[in-house]
């Protein structure tokens, strides 16, 4: 291998300055494009007020929302009364006055204590075990919080005062003396301690009550117990078998609404399927009119092509809003929207495929005196059919995704349900569940459509 010396290199570059210098125009264009992009992005930053919006965002709550995707909180509340403590749970919680989580332990109230209302359990001492030795111990006169080996002692006079003995540790905050104290256990949860009550938020990984909600007799049982009940137990509900009851409880789970979610998912699938199929069926004959080499009339070609352009360019969103008004919210609106948009798309693609066919087969058919219909049937269709079907299959899969989005504006399907779950800001675990369901369905359809397309036109179908 010969190596060029420095002088040789310089000699070469002097002999061919045009090769090494590059053209001014190219350099200038590069700079102009770069500067233009920077200027445009700066404009966009100002136009959308990106800085202000990002700074004004509620980023603290974003972490909670994200955590809600894969975890849940149980929120017992402990009220201070003069001589006792009342334990209660939020209204839709699976825990009740007679059903407590294992990590919440309490001693019964003294015999002289006054009685609590029916939906609350009363106690003389409550211990909430958060994590290992971290715990909150509540008595009618005070709260003791242990976190990471440190202890915080808070004296309480119910409904009157709250006082801390000594310094506050780093994991506890109090805005002003005498106000509520917030203790933070990291992911495991937090608690707000006030002179009136203690609000505990204990967070766990996983999805709460995914199969059975708090109303179900199967709630809180282990898989083994449930299987034993389903296959050999006494009938819990005399009207139906245990297996039927279990299925009914799962489908009508009030927190996850499995039945409703599945129906909505099916609607989305149906919207994509029927919309794509009808669009293919209508676009197929119309494409013959639009193809220049098949219909010789230029006017007919142009009219058909502009019609396709119109259907395609009026966005799927407009069609969706339009048909939602016409047919009311539901899958018919979604089907119609997909049908209209994709008739345009398919018409364009099909007529392009028809214009690219090999003319020899048609000539052959014509030369033996076949009727015009037979010429198309045997001379054209066999050439293009695999390509057309493959394009429809590709769009079938892609429409399953689009159907989710137009659903959110009222065109039916899982989109609307997803949107409602997001708007309430408290059901992010349901959002995660539906997203997972959508991803699985899209994945399955993607594979079906790819497999079918590969069988139809060989390995060319890589997209």
């Amino acid at each position: 291998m010969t190596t060029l010396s420095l002088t040789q290199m310089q000699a070469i570059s002097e002999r061919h300055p045009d090769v090494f210098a590059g053209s001014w125009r190219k350099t200038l264009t590069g700079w102009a494009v770069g500067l233009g992009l920077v200027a445009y992005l700066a404009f966009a930053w100002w136009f959308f007020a990106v800085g202000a919006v990002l700074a004004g965002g509620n980023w603290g709550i974003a972490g909670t929302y994200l955590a809600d995707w894969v975890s849940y909180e149980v929120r017992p509340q402990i009220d201070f009364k003069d001589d006792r403590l009342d334990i209660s749970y939020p209204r839709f919680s699976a825990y009740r006055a007679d059903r407590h989580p294992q990590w919440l332990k309490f001693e019964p109230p003294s015999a002289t204590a006054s009685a609590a209302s029916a939906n609350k359990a009363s106690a003389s001492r409550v211990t909430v075990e958060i994590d290992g030795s971290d715990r909150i111990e509540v008595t009618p006169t005070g709260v003791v919080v242990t976190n990471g080996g440190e202890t915080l002692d808070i004296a309480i006079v119910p409904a009157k005062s709250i006082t801390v003995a000594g310094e506050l540790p780093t994991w506890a905050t109090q805005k002003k003396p005498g106000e509520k104290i917030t203790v933070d256990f990291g992911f495991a949860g937090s608690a707000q301690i006030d002179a009136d009550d203690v609000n505990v938020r204990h967070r766990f990984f996983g999805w709460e009550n995914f199969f059975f909600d708090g109303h179900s007799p199967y709630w809180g049982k282990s898989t083994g117990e449930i299987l034993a009940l389903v296959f050999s137990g006494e009938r819990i509900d005399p009207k139906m078998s245990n297996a039927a009851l279990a299925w009914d409880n799962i489908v009508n789970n009030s927190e996850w609404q499995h039945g409703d979610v599945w129906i909505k998912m099916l609607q989305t699938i149906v919207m994509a399927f029927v919309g794509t199929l009808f669009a293919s069926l209508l676009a197929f004959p119309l494409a013959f009119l639009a193809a220049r080499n098949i219909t010789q009339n230029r006017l007919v070609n142009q009219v058909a092509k502009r019609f396709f352009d119109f259907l395609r360019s009026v966005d799927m969103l407009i069609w969706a809003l339009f048909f939602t008004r016409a047919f009311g919210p539901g899958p018919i609106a979604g089907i119609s929207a997909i049908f209209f948009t994709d008739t345009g798309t398919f018409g364009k693609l099909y007529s392009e495929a028809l214009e690219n066919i090999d003319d020899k087969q048609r000539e052959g058919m014509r030369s033996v005196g076949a009727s015009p219909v037979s010429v198309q049937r045997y001379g054209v269709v066999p050439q293009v059919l695999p390509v057309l079907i493959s394009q429809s299959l590709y769009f079938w899969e892609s429409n399953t995704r689009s159907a989710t989005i137009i659903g959110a504006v009222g065109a039916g399907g899982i989109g609307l349900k997803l949107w409602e779950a997001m708007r309430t800001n408290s059901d992010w675990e349901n959002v995660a569940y539906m997203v997972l369901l959508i991803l699985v369905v899209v994945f399955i359809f993607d594979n079906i459509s790819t497999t079918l397309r590969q069988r139809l036109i060989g390995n060319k179908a890589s997209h």
Partner: protein
Amino acid sequence: MTMPLSEAGLAVEQHWRELASRRRLYTAGGLFFLFIALSGSLWFANDSNAGKFFDRLPHFFDFVDQMIPRDVFDIWRAMFDLPSPYADGSLKFDYPEGRMYLFGSFYLPEYVYKMLETINIALVSTLIGFAFGFLLCFLAASNLVTQRWLRFFVRRFLEILRAFPEIVIAGFFLAVLSMGAIPAIIAVSLHTIGALGKMFFEVVENADMKADEGLRAVGGNWPERVWFGIVPQVMPNFLSYALLRLEINVRASTIIGAVGGGGIGEVLRLSISRNHEAKTIAIIILLFCTIVAVDQFSAWLRKRLVGEQAFAFGRGD
């Protein structure tokens, strides 16, 4: 003319007949299955719709009727924010209210401004998607990266970005940042990174490796090989895919706008649901013209960049 076939010929014919009849059976079976699936789907769709198809069909044109404004020029006035002779103080005819004064008495009509907002959302998202898709695609190409795990990781990452419903990302950021265009930009950008990244690495994998080999022979390192060997070849294709994506993103940002992401989608949804017929038609005309213009412009530019090359099925997601 007909000659009796020999024994071998008869066997061939027999075989052909068997094949043909089996084929016909499969076709009939397939069509039958399709028919059953279709009828079931139609029944289900009709059953779970708020209005039933055949009940609603006679009233279909009532709605179209309601969409016709009092006079044709009202559409014009709605589009350019001119005062309407029917103005009665209601939201329906308050066209001049939405004027965006830029300087002096020169103003942008409300819907033109909103349309520009939507186009800018699409443009910014496409730029962001292009930048990150560009950076990631070389790491996913099997002819440039020998580490399997890296390729696998980048490809799965792009796949997740592409398959994750845009509307969920938009919804999440709408909850964090409140209503506005930024959630739409984030959602569309993330999807664009996934979609363009996939297109790009397929282009890179089909690139001619001779330039790369030459650079390797003179001792170029990895970034140099990519920058001088691959990028000049693939750039025209990258740009034309990005233009295709821009068309898709204009539509996508309109839809995201309709669910709270700002821009023309939002005003369209509001005016349809409030029965503001002149405004609705003005917006639809504006949107239609914009989409046609963007499509034509991008088709023209693409043709200049890569010639008559056709692209995968027009949508490319």
